[in-house]
């Protein structure tokens, strides 16, 4: 059987201590039989993080931001939108050039359950997201949109029972399938005339919808991930991570 290739990738503009936890979580992922995984990061202004990786695992993307923002913060302005959008396009290009079958795009503050990839690959969608609770918006909100972006997060409660759900848009931590990788017109660039497409994930989902009419987009809520958006979340994680490991082994 031919081995299928998975590219685990992200744009990285992150605090080193959080990246270390993130990298550990990726290294703990169980890779199902018949698959092989490689990591690839587009790293912005973070030489310390580059030192944690081997040279074929990243490319450097130094930006002269007019306004420096705190690493890992979720405050967005135009130039940071652009840097993330371009980084995600670079990852897509890299995957296409090196003939990957899947991209597992995991934002650099997301910690995954070790069995996540096994679940997502079985889900067999074009874009399959892993649910996590978002600590922005006072803990309300996840990385999916049932209908569309500007309607916010309708129907949030319906995803609480563990399962696999059809959604409109999935982002932040998603497994991207071969049909999308093979369609070179699909990118993260903004779409003229669609204001919400400045959110690169939305532009990506919208393009995929148009270019693959029977697109399958799911959220898998069976193994929720954690998001380390700030110091508080990080401290909490450092206290709880041993318990998490024991629990994960029992899942």
């Amino acid at each position, binding site marked *: 059987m031919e081995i299928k290739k998975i590219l685990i990738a992200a744009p990285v503009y992150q605090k080193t201590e959080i990246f270390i936890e993130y990298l550990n979580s990726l290294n703990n992922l169980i890779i199902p039989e018949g698959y092989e995984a490689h990591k690839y990061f587009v790293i912005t202004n973070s030489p310390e993080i580059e030192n944690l990786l081997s040279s074929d695992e990243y490319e450097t993307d130094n930006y002269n931001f007019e306004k420096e923002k705190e690493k890992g913060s979720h405050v967005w302005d135009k130039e940071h939108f652009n840097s993330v959008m371009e980084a995600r396009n670079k990852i897509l290009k890299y995957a296409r050039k090196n003939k990957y079958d899947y991209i597992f795009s995991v934002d650099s503050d997301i910690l995954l359950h070790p069995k996540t990839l096994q679940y997502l690959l079985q889900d067999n969608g074009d874009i399959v997201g892993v649910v996590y609770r978002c600590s922005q918006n006072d803990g309300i909100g996840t990385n999916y949109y049932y209908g569309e972006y500007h309607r916010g997060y309708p129907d949030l409660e319906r995803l609480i029972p563990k399962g696999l759900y059809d959604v409109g848009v999935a982002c932040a931590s998603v497994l991207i399938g071969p049909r999308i990788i093979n369609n070179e*017109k699909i990118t993260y660039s903004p779409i003229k005339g669609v*204001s919400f497409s400045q959110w690169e994930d939305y532009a990506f989902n919208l393009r995929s919808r148009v270019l693959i009419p029977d697109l399958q987009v799911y959220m898998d809520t069976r193994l929720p991930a954690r998001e380390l958006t700030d110091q508080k979340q990080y401290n909490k994680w450092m206290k709880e991570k041993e318990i998490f490991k024991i629990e994960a082994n029992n899942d």
Partner: protein
Amino acid sequence: MKKILITAPVHQDAKIFKEYLWSLDRLEIPEGYEIHKYFYLHNCDNLKKFLNFDEYEVFKNDVEIEKNDNIHIWKSENYQCTAIMRTKALKKAAKENYDYIFSVDSDIVLHSKTLIDLLSKEKDIISKVYWTTPNILQPYITIPNFYDNIDEKRNIKFDKTLNYYKIIDTYCVNVVSNPLLISSKIFNELSLNYYPINILSTSYKNEYAFCVRCRCLFPDINFYIDTIHPARHLYRKEDYKNWIEWEKSEWK
């Protein structure tokens, strides 16, 4: 010989439709081109008599448009119907090897030079401007048949002030609508259609769904609006009355 398909979904009063056909018949056709008309008559069998048997097909259902003296109330069913008919026209043009579709709604009166203007620009997607008074109580406010954006409250948005477009020129804009000249490069793409995109609520509007799809399918393409020789929109009774009494005799 290059072939142009002039087409529209039609749900119209006979007297306005007659003015519409009058302007189509006066269109100057550039050398090397031939035109064919084909209409989708939506619940208006009475218009058959103005057309040859090979110039229409009938589209029947129980959806009607509400009109009053001021505005036309378009419900989602109305948009669904026109999306189906407009998509049929795209597929017909592709199948029958047309070089262009010229999509002109049935309440538009065109200047006779319109086709010459649009073809001479050599664009894949180009529209001719017309201006409409959206509310009869505010006659000094007019909006054009293009825009740059539409928000979640369904308000259309422009990147520049509208006065900017009053100077005669060809402008690049984000969203264009009828009267629209579309090249075969565009409509030969099989996945192009006018149906709403399920994660974009504003794409209930046919032209918006069409433009967003084109952007995705043809990442390098731009949309243009040509503002010389504006068309006339016979939107309300008042417009028709003015047209018949004053404007028609002067119309070029």
